[in-house]
């Protein structure tokens, strides 16, 4: 048995967040310290409730925290209910755990405490707008250097999915994203960025979903059910399946060898008109930034990725 990674996940569950959560839960190399939730795909309340439902589903005991209900700068909230359904989880309502969470501490305080306790060992996975993390970094300037790694699902090196330039998680709170990427260049905390370049390549097809539904565990059934709504959405775009964006940082943590990466300078445009929320990288330009603050995933072995993702879901008892 190899090293065990203590992990914190920040999410806006979220249909593909749900799959990422379940994959993370199933990984033997991880020890989940806490999960924080934020407004994103749907409201904070939805994110929190949906994540608690997953916790009950797998019988987990790690704490779930509530974080920010709106982006940092009071921008208008952007949700993605057309993809994720009006409750954020493909309109699937999961049963809630019987007891409430023991702590009502906000996400940023809980994350900081965990990072302090774990003395530089905590891996932070984010699959949502970065409002909670930015708030934590502002309140606790030492926090970035207390983290082992930040693995981010967000951004794109070229085109966006929310606007021509911007990916959803970054577009939903560009200032928060810029604070987090800046922390990378200021504190030196390693950032692994999983942009659309890779996250759009890894898809679960309708057949994959049926296979999971039939695998005999509850998790597989739930994955099938919550992905039906996004499947409908992606069918209209003639995509062959549903993109497993949020599982990318999770699988990177366990299987980095599946990804091709390159170091880059990354910043977030917060003042642009049409470019608001663009993650600007210096990967393809003659002009380079004078820092490298992220390891950017540019390609992925998608077959092996999907194979392992399905194995993880099937392995849940």
């Amino acid at each position, binding site marked *: 048995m190899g090293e065990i990674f203590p992990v914190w996940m920040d999410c806006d569950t979220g249909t593909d967040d749900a799959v990422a959560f379940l994959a993370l839960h199933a990984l033997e190399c991880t020890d989940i310290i806490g999960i924080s939730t934020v407004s994103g795909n749907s409201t904070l309340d939805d994110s929190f409730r949906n994540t608690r439902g997953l916790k009950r589903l797998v019988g987990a005991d790690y704490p779930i925290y509530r974080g920010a209900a709106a982006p940092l700068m009071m921008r208008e909230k952007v949700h993605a209910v057309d993809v994720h359904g009006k409750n954020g989880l493909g309109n699937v309502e999961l049963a809630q755990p019987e007891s409430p969470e023991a702590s009502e501490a906000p996400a940023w305080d809980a994350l900081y405490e965990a990072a302090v306790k774990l003395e530089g060992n905590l891996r932070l996975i984010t699959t949502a707008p970065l409002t909670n993390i930015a708030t934590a970094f502002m309140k606790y300037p030492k926090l970035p250097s207390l983290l082992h790694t930040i693995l981010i699902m967000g951004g794109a090196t070229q085109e966006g999915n929310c606007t021509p330039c911007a990916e959803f998680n970054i577009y939903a709170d560009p200032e928060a994203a810029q604070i987090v990427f800046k922390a990378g260049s200021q504190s030196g905390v390693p950032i692994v960025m999983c942009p659309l370049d890779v996250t759009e390549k890894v898809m679960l097809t309708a057949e994959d979903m049926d296979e999971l539904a039939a695998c005999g565990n509850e998790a597989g059934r739930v994955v099938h059910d919550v992905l039906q709504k996004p499947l409908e959405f992606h069918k209209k775009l003639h995509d062959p399946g549903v993109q497993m964006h949020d599982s990318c940082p999770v699988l990177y943590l366990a299987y980095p060898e599946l990804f091709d990466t390159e170091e880059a300078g990354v910043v977030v445009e917060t003042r*642009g008109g049409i470019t608001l929320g*663009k993650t600007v990288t210096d990967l393809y*330009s003659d*002009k380079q930034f004078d820092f490298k603050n992220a390891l950017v995933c540019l390609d992925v072995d998608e077959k092996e990725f999907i194979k392992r993702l399905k194995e993880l879901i099937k392995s849940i008892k």
Partner: protein
Amino acid sequence: MTEKKSKLPLILDGDPGHDDAIAWLLAEASRRTDGICDIRAVTTVGGNVSLDKTTYNALRVCTLLGIEAPIAAGAPHPLTADLMVAPSVHGESGLDGPALPEPDRDLSDLTAVELMAKVIKDSEDKVTIVSTGPMTNTATLLLAHPELKSNIERISLMGGGLGFGNWTPAAEFNILVDPEAADIVFRSGVPLIMAGLDVTERALLEPDDFERIRDIKNPVSDIVWQWLEFFYKFHKKLGYEGAPMHDPCAVMALIHPEIFTFEDYYVQVETGGEYCRGATVADRRRVMDKAPNAKCIMNLNRDAFADYVFEGVRAYG
């Protein structure tokens, strides 16, 4: 594009520049051989270097190449921004390298915009503008003479990039120098061909091509060879395997469209932004419900391109 090649009345608007000069050579060579291009005016703009220098260079280049059209000086600075120049690419004179003949002709008494307007008004056929510098003159023409828009066949421009920039990570030089002018051009409704970095960085002339051109031994071949060597020296340091023929793409796309691949997109220019000012944003996924405004060149047959540049030089004997 498979349209019939009819005669093309041209206005060459640029900031010469080694690659502008080679673009103009292609146009004049076409006039001499297949008779497609018919250069009606040459206009200059500040860009690679100051307006005084680009205008002097235009006079010298037209003298060398035997371009007999009237030459007019245009805008000394961008519409609203301060002029930004690129002496590191083209040298202090804007056209460093071989000694060029002193101008044997005078500048027109008209301004660039007056000359452009006159040529368009006087032409029986619609006129094509080849823009290989910041688009200040062209934008001013469109603003000052809206009545002439319908007499412009199209604007074939070197500028921008759909995926990345060169002078900043997000922006290409010509657009970055005068983003407001570019914005006016892209929103004008005049048909556009956009030769952006996506194609121009692949339009490489390699050292073998330089030698082939040098060995032609006609009145221009030695100078073109030295221009290529000079231009390559700068780009080699950046990792290029040849001299990128940015501006010649804007002319070649008119004479030999069959060697390029085009995609139609709605393209906008970012005029704000902290990191993205001057970025050209294409709605590649058609999320904006806007009709395409530009034929964007995406790729080319490099060997055919190199052969046609060779043929262009050979037109001089």
